[in-house]
Protein backbone atom coordinates (compact mmCIF):
# COMPACT_ATOMS: atom_id res chain seq x y z
CA UNK A 1 0.00 0.00 0.00
CA UNK A 2 1.59 3.24 -1.13
CA UNK A 3 -1.26 5.52 0.00
CA UNK A 4 0.50 6.35 3.27
CA UNK A 5 3.45 7.67 1.32
CA UNK A 6 1.04 9.62 -0.92
CA UNK A 7 -0.71 11.01 2.18
CA UNK A 8 2.62 12.10 3.69
CA UNK A 9 3.55 13.97 0.49
CA UNK A 10 0.11 15.52 0.42
CA UNK A 11 0.41 16.77 4.01
CA UNK A 12 3.87 18.15 3.29
CA UNK A 13 2.59 20.16 0.31
CA UNK A 14 -0.43 21.43 2.23
CA UNK A 15 1.62 22.43 5.29
CA UNK A 16 4.03 24.38 3.13
CA UNK A 17 1.21 26.24 1.39
CA UNK A 18 -0.49 26.97 4.73
CA UNK A 19 2.73 28.31 6.26
CA UNK A 20 3.35 30.52 3.26
CA UNK A 21 -0.14 31.95 3.73
CA UNK A 22 0.53 32.49 7.42
CA UNK A 23 -2.22 30.09 8.47
CA UNK A 24 -2.02 28.28 11.78
CA UNK A 25 -4.12 25.35 10.73
CA UNK A 26 -5.87 23.85 7.75
CA UNK A 27 -9.60 23.22 7.72
CA UNK A 28 -9.95 21.39 4.43
CA UNK A 29 -7.88 20.01 1.57
CA UNK A 30 -9.24 19.72 -1.97
CA UNK A 31 -7.81 16.97 -4.09
CA UNK A 32 -8.40 15.79 -7.63
CA UNK A 33 -7.95 12.05 -7.97
CA UNK A 34 -7.90 10.44 -11.39
CA UNK A 35 -9.30 7.00 -12.10
CA UNK A 36 -5.87 6.12 -13.53
CA UNK A 37 -3.80 7.57 -10.70
CA UNK A 38 -3.21 4.18 -9.13
CA UNK A 39 -4.43 5.48 -5.80
CA UNK A 40 -7.23 3.75 -3.92
CA UNK A 41 -9.52 6.46 -2.59
CA UNK A 42 -10.57 4.58 0.56
CA UNK A 43 -6.96 3.78 1.44
CA UNK A 44 -5.98 7.42 1.01
CA UNK A 45 -8.90 8.56 3.16
CA UNK A 46 -7.77 6.13 5.83
CA UNK A 47 -4.13 7.26 5.71
CA UNK A 48 -4.70 11.00 5.52
CA UNK A 49 -5.59 11.62 9.21
CA UNK A 50 -2.62 9.47 10.26
CA UNK A 51 -0.25 11.46 8.08
CA UNK A 52 -1.74 14.75 9.31
CA UNK A 53 -1.15 14.00 12.99
CA UNK A 54 0.93 16.62 14.81
CA UNK A 55 0.95 18.94 11.80
CA UNK A 56 -0.99 22.06 10.80
CA UNK A 57 -3.19 19.73 8.79
CA UNK A 58 -4.36 17.66 11.77
CA UNK A 59 -8.13 17.43 11.80
CA UNK A 60 -8.55 18.79 8.27
CA UNK A 61 -11.29 17.49 5.98
CA UNK A 62 -10.16 15.76 2.82
CA UNK A 63 -12.43 16.54 -0.10
CA UNK A 64 -11.78 14.31 -3.05
CA UNK A 65 -13.06 14.95 -6.54
CA UNK A 66 -12.68 11.84 -8.65
CA UNK A 67 -11.77 12.39 -12.28
CA UNK A 68 -12.86 9.77 -14.82
CA UNK A 69 -10.63 8.53 -17.61
CA UNK A 70 -11.06 10.53 -20.80
CA UNK A 71 -9.30 9.57 -24.01
CA UNK A 72 -8.90 11.50 -27.23
CA UNK A 73 -10.26 9.39 -30.07
CA UNK A 74 -8.51 10.15 -33.37
CA UNK A 75 -11.08 8.64 -35.76
CA UNK A 76 -13.98 10.38 -34.01
CA UNK A 77 -12.02 13.55 -33.39
CA UNK A 78 -13.39 14.02 -29.91
CA UNK A 79 -12.80 13.20 -26.26
CA UNK A 80 -14.54 10.06 -25.04
CA UNK A 81 -15.06 8.18 -21.79
CA UNK A 82 -14.25 4.49 -22.22
CA UNK A 83 -15.81 1.70 -20.22
CA UNK A 84 -14.00 0.74 -17.04
CA UNK A 85 -10.77 -1.16 -17.71
CA UNK A 86 -10.93 -0.37 -21.43
CA UNK A 87 -8.95 2.02 -23.60
CA UNK A 88 -11.30 1.88 -26.55
CA UNK A 89 -13.62 4.53 -27.87
CA UNK A 90 -17.20 3.51 -26.96
CA UNK A 91 -18.42 4.88 -30.32
CA UNK A 92 -15.99 3.57 -32.94
CA UNK A 93 -14.04 0.96 -30.96
CA UNK A 94 -10.61 2.40 -31.78
CA UNK A 95 -7.98 1.93 -29.07
CA UNK A 96 -6.32 5.10 -27.83
CA UNK A 97 -3.33 6.01 -25.70
CA UNK A 98 -3.99 9.73 -25.67
CA UNK A 99 -5.06 10.18 -22.09
CA UNK A 100 -6.71 13.59 -21.71
CA UNK A 101 -7.53 13.19 -18.05
CA UNK A 102 -7.63 10.47 -15.43
CA UNK A 103 -4.05 10.49 -14.16
CA UNK A 104 -4.58 13.46 -11.81
CA UNK A 105 -3.30 13.34 -8.28
CA UNK A 106 -3.18 16.98 -7.36
CA UNK A 107 -4.04 19.40 -4.64
CA UNK A 108 -6.27 22.12 -6.07
CA UNK A 109 -6.77 24.18 -2.94
CA UNK A 110 -6.82 24.37 0.81
CA UNK A 111 -9.18 26.07 3.22
CA UNK A 112 -7.66 27.95 6.12
CA UNK A 113 -9.37 29.95 8.87
CA UNK A 114 -10.18 33.51 7.92
CA UNK A 115 -8.15 36.06 9.86
CA UNK A 116 -10.23 37.83 12.54
CA UNK A 117 -12.10 40.81 11.10
CA UNK A 118 -10.22 44.03 11.86
CA UNK A 119 -13.11 45.37 13.94
CA UNK A 120 -12.86 42.67 16.59
CA UNK A 121 -9.19 43.26 17.08
CA UNK A 122 -9.83 46.58 18.73
Amino acid at each position, binding site marked *: *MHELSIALSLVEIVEEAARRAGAERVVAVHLRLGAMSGVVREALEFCFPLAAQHTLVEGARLEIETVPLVLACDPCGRDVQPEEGSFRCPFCGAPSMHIRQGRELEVTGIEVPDPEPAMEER
Partner: protein
Amino acid sequence: MSTVSTRLLEIRTGVLSKNDQLAARLRERFQEAGVLALNFVSSPGSGKTALLERTLTELVRAGRRPAALVGDLATDNDARRLERSGALVRQIQTRDMCHLEAEMISAHLEAAGWNLAELDYLFIENVGNLVCPSGYDLGEQVRVVLLSVTEGEDKPVKYPVLFNSADVAIITKLDLAEACGIDLALMRRNIKEVRPGITIFETSARTGAGMDVWMAWLMARCVEG
Protein backbone atom coordinates in the same frame (compact mmCIF):
# COMPACT_ATOMS: atom_id res chain seq x y z
CA MET B 1 -19.96 21.96 13.99
CA SER B 2 -18.00 25.15 14.47
CA THR B 3 -18.79 28.14 12.37
CA VAL B 4 -15.23 29.22 11.68
CA SER B 5 -15.22 31.22 8.51
CA THR B 6 -12.55 30.09 6.11
CA ARG B 7 -10.89 31.30 2.99
CA LEU B 8 -9.89 29.15 0.08
CA LEU B 9 -6.33 29.23 -1.19
CA GLU B 10 -6.03 27.89 -4.66
CA ILE B 11 -2.93 25.83 -5.28
CA ARG B 12 -2.34 23.42 -8.10
CA THR B 13 0.35 21.03 -7.09
CA GLY B 14 0.82 17.42 -8.10
CA VAL B 15 1.12 15.32 -4.96
CA LEU B 16 4.05 13.50 -6.54
CA SER B 17 5.60 16.62 -8.02
CA LYS B 18 8.76 16.28 -5.93
CA ASN B 19 9.28 12.75 -7.19
CA ASP B 20 8.49 13.81 -10.74
CA GLN B 21 11.01 16.68 -10.69
CA LEU B 22 13.75 14.45 -9.35
CA ALA B 23 12.87 11.77 -11.93
CA ALA B 24 13.09 14.33 -14.72
CA ARG B 25 16.59 15.30 -13.55
CA LEU B 26 17.62 11.63 -13.42
CA ARG B 27 16.30 11.09 -16.95
CA GLU B 28 18.38 14.02 -18.19
CA ARG B 29 21.47 12.56 -16.56
CA PHE B 30 20.84 9.14 -18.11
CA GLN B 31 20.34 10.67 -21.52
CA GLU B 32 23.48 12.79 -21.29
CA ALA B 33 25.53 9.81 -20.17
CA GLY B 34 24.08 7.60 -22.91
CA VAL B 35 22.61 5.09 -20.48
CA LEU B 36 19.37 3.32 -21.24
CA ALA B 37 17.46 3.07 -17.96
CA LEU B 38 14.74 0.43 -17.68
CA ASN B 39 12.29 0.07 -14.81
CA PHE B 40 11.09 -3.52 -14.38
CA VAL B 41 7.72 -3.92 -12.72
CA SER B 42 5.73 -7.09 -12.08
CA SER B 43 3.97 -9.11 -9.44
CA PRO B 44 6.11 -11.20 -7.06
CA GLY B 45 7.32 -14.47 -8.55
CA SER B 46 6.95 -13.37 -12.16
CA GLY B 47 10.49 -14.48 -12.96
CA LYS B 48 12.00 -11.00 -12.97
CA THR B 49 15.29 -11.99 -11.39
CA ALA B 50 15.73 -15.01 -13.68
CA LEU B 51 15.12 -12.88 -16.77
CA LEU B 52 17.47 -10.14 -15.56
CA GLU B 53 20.13 -12.70 -14.66
CA ARG B 54 20.09 -14.07 -18.19
CA THR B 55 19.84 -10.63 -19.78
CA LEU B 56 22.80 -9.24 -17.79
CA THR B 57 24.90 -12.32 -18.51
CA GLU B 58 24.28 -12.07 -22.24
CA LEU B 59 24.97 -8.32 -22.29
CA VAL B 60 28.27 -8.76 -20.44
CA ARG B 61 29.20 -11.56 -22.84
CA ALA B 62 28.45 -9.22 -25.76
CA GLY B 63 30.84 -6.63 -24.33
CA ARG B 64 28.16 -4.24 -23.09
CA ARG B 65 28.28 -2.58 -19.70
CA PRO B 66 25.09 -3.09 -17.71
CA ALA B 67 24.36 -2.18 -14.11
CA ALA B 68 21.39 -3.08 -11.95
CA LEU B 69 19.67 -1.57 -8.95
CA VAL B 70 17.68 -4.29 -7.25
CA GLY B 71 14.77 -3.36 -5.00
CA ASP B 72 13.99 -5.99 -2.44
CA LEU B 73 11.97 -5.95 0.75
CA ALA B 74 14.46 -7.60 3.08
CA THR B 75 17.05 -9.90 1.54
CA ASP B 76 19.94 -9.39 -0.85
CA ASN B 77 19.51 -12.83 -2.44
CA ASP B 78 18.49 -11.38 -5.81
CA ALA B 79 21.41 -8.95 -5.89
CA ARG B 80 23.88 -11.74 -5.18
CA ARG B 81 22.33 -13.87 -7.89
CA LEU B 82 22.64 -11.03 -10.40
CA GLU B 83 26.23 -10.23 -9.44
CA ARG B 84 27.36 -13.57 -10.86
CA SER B 85 26.61 -12.17 -14.32
CA GLY B 86 29.57 -9.82 -14.03
CA ALA B 87 27.38 -6.71 -14.10
CA LEU B 88 27.55 -3.94 -11.51
CA VAL B 89 24.81 -4.63 -9.00
CA ARG B 90 23.55 -2.76 -6.00
CA GLN B 91 20.81 -3.76 -3.61
CA ILE B 92 18.11 -1.32 -2.55
CA GLN B 93 16.67 -2.64 0.67
CA THR B 94 13.17 -1.21 0.81
CA ARG B 95 12.10 -2.76 4.13
CA ASP B 96 8.40 -1.84 4.30
CA MET B 97 8.20 0.10 1.06
CA CYS B 98 6.03 -1.42 -1.63
CA HIS B 99 7.62 0.54 -4.50
CA LEU B 100 10.74 2.50 -5.40
CA GLU B 101 10.87 6.29 -5.58
CA ALA B 102 13.16 8.58 -7.57
CA GLU B 103 14.92 9.71 -4.40
CA MET B 104 16.01 6.12 -3.67
CA ILE B 105 17.42 5.73 -7.17
CA SER B 106 19.30 8.99 -6.83
CA ALA B 107 20.71 8.12 -3.40
CA HIS B 108 21.78 4.63 -4.41
CA LEU B 109 23.45 5.81 -7.61
CA GLU B 110 25.40 8.27 -5.50
CA ALA B 111 26.34 5.64 -2.93
CA ALA B 112 27.34 3.14 -5.62
CA GLY B 113 29.66 5.72 -7.13
CA TRP B 114 29.14 4.36 -10.65
CA ASN B 115 30.30 6.49 -13.52
CA LEU B 116 27.17 6.66 -15.63
CA ALA B 117 29.17 7.60 -18.71
CA GLU B 118 30.86 4.17 -18.52
CA LEU B 119 27.55 2.31 -18.51
CA ASP B 120 25.28 1.25 -21.37
CA TYR B 121 22.27 0.04 -19.39
CA LEU B 122 20.78 0.62 -15.99
CA PHE B 123 18.25 -2.00 -14.99
CA ILE B 124 16.02 -1.09 -12.07
CA GLU B 125 14.26 -4.06 -10.54
CA ASN B 126 11.23 -2.61 -8.80
CA VAL B 127 9.51 -4.26 -5.85
CA GLY B 128 7.18 -7.10 -6.88
CA ASN B 129 3.84 -5.28 -6.89
CA LEU B 130 1.38 -4.49 -9.67
CA VAL B 131 -0.26 -1.52 -7.98
CA CYS B 132 2.03 0.83 -6.12
CA PRO B 133 4.97 1.35 -8.53
CA SER B 134 2.71 2.70 -11.27
CA GLY B 135 2.61 6.35 -10.23
CA TYR B 136 6.30 6.70 -9.43
CA ASP B 137 8.52 7.86 -12.26
CA LEU B 138 12.09 6.73 -11.60
CA GLY B 139 13.61 8.63 -14.50
CA GLU B 140 13.59 5.53 -16.69
CA GLN B 141 13.33 5.78 -20.47
CA VAL B 142 11.60 2.43 -20.72
CA ARG B 143 9.10 0.85 -18.36
CA VAL B 144 8.96 -2.91 -18.72
CA VAL B 145 6.13 -4.94 -17.23
CA LEU B 146 6.64 -8.67 -16.76
CA LEU B 147 3.84 -11.18 -16.81
CA SER B 148 4.40 -14.89 -16.35
CA VAL B 149 2.17 -17.44 -18.08
CA THR B 150 1.31 -18.85 -14.65
CA GLU B 151 -0.52 -15.65 -13.70
CA GLY B 152 -3.41 -16.14 -16.11
CA GLU B 153 -4.63 -14.23 -19.16
CA ASP B 154 -6.66 -11.55 -17.43
CA LYS B 155 -4.03 -10.01 -15.16
CA PRO B 156 -3.59 -6.96 -17.45
CA VAL B 157 -7.30 -6.22 -17.33
CA LYS B 158 -7.25 -6.46 -13.53
CA TYR B 159 -4.31 -4.07 -13.23
CA PRO B 160 -4.86 -1.64 -16.12
CA VAL B 161 -3.14 1.32 -14.46
CA LEU B 162 0.24 -0.35 -14.28
CA PHE B 163 0.00 -2.13 -17.63
CA ASN B 164 -1.08 1.11 -19.26
CA SER B 165 2.02 2.88 -17.96
CA ALA B 166 4.42 0.35 -19.53
CA ASP B 167 6.26 0.68 -22.86
CA VAL B 168 7.22 -2.97 -23.13
CA ALA B 169 5.64 -6.19 -21.86
CA ILE B 170 7.57 -9.42 -21.45
CA ILE B 171 5.63 -12.63 -21.08
CA THR B 172 7.86 -14.93 -19.03
CA LYS B 173 8.09 -18.66 -18.19
CA LEU B 174 7.07 -19.54 -21.73
CA ASP B 175 8.28 -23.11 -21.06
CA LEU B 176 5.34 -23.53 -18.67
CA ALA B 177 2.70 -22.24 -21.09
CA GLU B 178 1.46 -25.65 -22.14
CA ALA B 179 1.43 -27.05 -18.61
CA CYS B 180 -0.64 -24.03 -17.50
CA GLY B 181 -3.01 -24.32 -20.45
CA ILE B 182 -2.58 -20.64 -21.09
CA ASP B 183 -4.11 -18.96 -24.13
CA LEU B 184 -1.16 -16.84 -25.23
CA ALA B 185 -3.08 -15.06 -27.96
CA LEU B 186 -5.69 -13.98 -25.42
CA MET B 187 -2.96 -12.85 -23.01
CA ARG B 188 -1.40 -10.72 -25.74
CA ARG B 189 -4.80 -9.34 -26.67
CA ASN B 190 -5.52 -8.38 -23.06
CA ILE B 191 -2.19 -6.60 -22.73
CA LYS B 192 -2.93 -4.60 -25.89
CA GLU B 193 -6.44 -3.89 -24.69
CA VAL B 194 -5.14 -1.85 -21.76
CA ARG B 195 -2.01 -0.58 -23.50
CA PRO B 196 -2.55 -0.17 -27.25
CA GLY B 197 0.68 -0.13 -29.25
CA ILE B 198 2.83 -1.82 -26.61
CA THR B 199 5.81 -3.97 -27.67
CA ILE B 200 5.45 -7.55 -26.45
CA PHE B 201 8.16 -10.20 -26.04
CA GLU B 202 7.71 -13.84 -25.08
CA THR B 203 10.58 -15.45 -23.22
CA SER B 204 11.73 -18.34 -21.13
CA ALA B 205 14.79 -17.57 -19.04
CA ARG B 206 15.08 -21.29 -18.34
CA THR B 207 15.21 -22.59 -21.91
CA GLY B 208 16.35 -19.36 -23.51
CA ALA B 209 13.35 -19.31 -25.86
CA GLY B 210 12.60 -15.85 -27.18
CA MET B 211 15.66 -14.35 -25.50
CA ASP B 212 17.29 -13.58 -28.86
CA VAL B 213 14.43 -11.29 -29.91
CA TRP B 214 14.46 -9.46 -26.57
CA MET B 215 18.25 -9.12 -26.63
CA ALA B 216 18.21 -7.81 -30.20
CA TRP B 217 15.68 -5.16 -29.18
CA LEU B 218 17.83 -4.17 -26.18
CA MET B 219 20.98 -3.94 -28.28
CA ALA B 220 19.23 -1.82 -30.88
CA ARG B 221 17.84 0.53 -28.23
CA CYS B 222 21.25 1.14 -26.70
CA VAL B 223 23.02 4.35 -27.61
CA GLU B 224 26.15 2.98 -29.32
CA GLY B 225 28.44 0.95 -27.05
